[in-house]
């Protein structure tokens, strides 16, 4: 019995060690490449919401973490988790900020978005980072499927809340796309809240230390 136990234990341990070692080696080999890919991906997204020509800093590194404390109750509770924001500067003077946010009331849960806002409070671009909306219906918020998301560009809010920032069905200026109301409504609300928050806390945000090199 002792022999059997010993043999099994040893064989299994050897295999485990070898396998882990292999994985470890591959991991160390690919680590840098993966990091690079991630940054490129992020940069690509950022460049979509803020025109890369307008800034000249390493935007990925100029990143802050903050907790949004907006007016909307539901959004507040769900946005307590810190979000990242990327600050674009031109020769060290701030030009715009890309803020990640979460629309909690999507049709199928959270919609993660990133909103680019110029210092003037004008939206420079919005993109959806992640969502679980119904394919063919709610997923039109993706640029790949529909250009609807670009309607935010160059919009700004007047007052908080701004009654125009609603979908057409609710009497606002954003058209909902056919068949779905809930998803655009959620996105509109989230963008609105983010912009409103930005307007109110512009100074503090820009003044925050650039403390998050790594985004997860």
């Amino acid at each position: 019995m002792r022999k059997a136990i010993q043999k099994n234990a040893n064989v299994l341990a050897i295999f485990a060690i070898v396998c882990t070692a292999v994985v470890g080696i591959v991991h160390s080999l690919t680590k840098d490449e993966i990091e690079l890919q991630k940054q490129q991906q992020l940069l690509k997204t950022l460049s979509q919401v803020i025109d890369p020509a307008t800034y000249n800093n390493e935007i990925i590194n100029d990143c802050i973490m903050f907790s949004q404390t907006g007016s909307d109750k539901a959004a507040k509770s769900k946005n307590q988790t810190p979000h990242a924001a990327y600050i674009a500067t031109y020769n060290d003077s701030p030009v715009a900020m890309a803020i990640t946010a979460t629309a909690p009331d999507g049709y199928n849960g959270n919609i993660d978005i990133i909103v680019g806002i110029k210092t003037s409070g004008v939206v420079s671009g919005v993109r959806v980072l992640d969502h679980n909306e119904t394919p063919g219906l709610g997923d039109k918020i993706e640029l790949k499927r529909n250009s609807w998301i670009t309607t935010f560009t160059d919009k700004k809010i007047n007052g908080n809340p701004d009654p125009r920032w609603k979908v057409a069905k609710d009497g606002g200026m954003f058209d909902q796309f056919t068949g779905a109301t809930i998803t655009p409504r959620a996105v509109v609300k989230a963008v609105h809240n983010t912009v409103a928050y930005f307007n109110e806390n512009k100074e503090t945000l820009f003044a925050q230390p650039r403390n998050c090199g790594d985004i997860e």
Partner: protein
Amino acid sequence: MSIVIAILVIGFIALLFGALLGYASIRFKVEGDPLAEQIDDLLPQTQCGQCGYPGCKPYADAVANGEAINKCAPGGEETIKKIAELMGVEVQALDENHATDNTPKVAFIIEEDCIGCTKCIQACPVDAIIGTTKQMHTVIVDECTGCDLCVAPCPVDCIEMRPIETTKQSWQWDLNSIPVTQVD
């Protein structure tokens, strides 16, 4: 560094579980193979040897050890289905090499011809033939499994397999088989 730690941790866990498995393999060893018994229960027990094994039990043992399940001709599809279900394998068609006409039959000794050689008695796997040397033999119909093993050994060809007659009790309500007699 973290990789080394990972390797050590995994290695240790593996050692532990390997030991555990080694212990369990001895401590909880199952003796015998009840599967063969279960298969044997499904076989028709004709002991006819058509499967290539001397009797139903040996075939059951063989099936439990991976022999094809489709070799029992007297059991037919019904038996194959049951074995397949028991063993969790797919139902196969009856092996063509073993497929025979499997309508139930019983042996019948044409008594005028029997010389009492007892060869059939020795061939019968279930002792369903009685008689003694140099006396006529006869088949106990209810014990006969219809395996036809007694047919070949008979030196005078006095044994034939006859289909079992339908009675009121064994009638299967096949209305189509009723001859509608044309009576003036």
